[in-house]
């Protein structure tokens, strides 16, 4: 979630150094020097262009709050329409608020957690496959790069270099689609929604 708070000028990749896949720092610096030599300006990361990072948090909060408002007010109106007393209307509202918050938090926690477990299992499977049959896995990676538009020879080279550098990382990113940046964080998501539902509007 560091995209939303990014400074006005952020060098490419500087935010990736703290977490994420292995970054070859010395090679990256050499690349920066090369770019400086060519008088190439580093792209400025704009706050308005990339909304994928911080927007997830806000969207989850708004969705949680909306959900709370719709369910609570529907419940209140339903009991009121059934000619419930003021007291029973309020009891139904409080019960609905608490149960809604709890079930939302629980289901969100379970879903995010099971996704993390699935990713972990897939990585373990990939590890054993790599041990058993290195060659066909490399061919699969090459095929992926060819499908993305690289020529077969270049794709083979790319696959070889990425494997030599960070084998499991290359397979995780390009074959399984797991990247460190979007790794699921179970507790945060759960607490976020619960707070939005219960303390929010």
């Amino acid at each position, binding site marked *: 979630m560091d995209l939303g708070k990014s400074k006005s000028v952020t060098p490419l990749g500087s935010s990736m150094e703290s977490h994420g896949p292995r970054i070859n720092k010395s090679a990256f610096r050499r690349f920066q020097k090369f770019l400086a030599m060519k008088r190439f300006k580093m792209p400025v990361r704009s706050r308005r262009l990339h909304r994928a990072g911080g927007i997830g948090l806000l969207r989850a909060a708004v969705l949680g709050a*909306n959900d709370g408002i719709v369910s609570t007010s529907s419940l*209140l*109106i339903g*009991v009121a329409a*059934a000619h419930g007393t003021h007291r029973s209307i309020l009891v139904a509202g409080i019960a609905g608020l608490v149960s809604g918050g709890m079930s939302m938090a629980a289901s969100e926690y379970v879903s995010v957690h099971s996704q993390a477990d699935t990713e972990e299992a897939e990585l373990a499977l990939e590890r054993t496959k790599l041990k058993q049959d290195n060659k066909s896995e490399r061919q699969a990676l090459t095929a992926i790069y060819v499908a993305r538009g690289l020529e077969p020879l270049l794709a083979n080279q790319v696959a070889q270099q990425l494997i030599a550098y960070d084998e499991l990382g290359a397979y995780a990113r390009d074959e399984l689609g797991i990247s460190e940046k979007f790794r699921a964080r179970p507790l945060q998501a759960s607490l976020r929604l619960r707070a939005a539902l219960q303390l929010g509007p």
Partner: protein
Amino acid sequence: MMPLIVSAIAPEARLIPIASLSSLAVLALMGGLAAHAGGARVMMGAVRVTFWGGLAMAMTAGIGWLVGTIAQ
């Protein structure tokens, strides 16, 4: 939280219109806010959230009215 507070304060005779209208107003506001933050059209987001929220409230009110008339 908001609908609960509103219905605690509101007079019992006018509870349904007050609670539903205030909830719909907040829903429209939140939908617009989410759309604006996501770079989408504000009007579209507000209308979408308000429509489905209103439908949910209307259906629950209908069920409550049915149950209330049958029980009496």
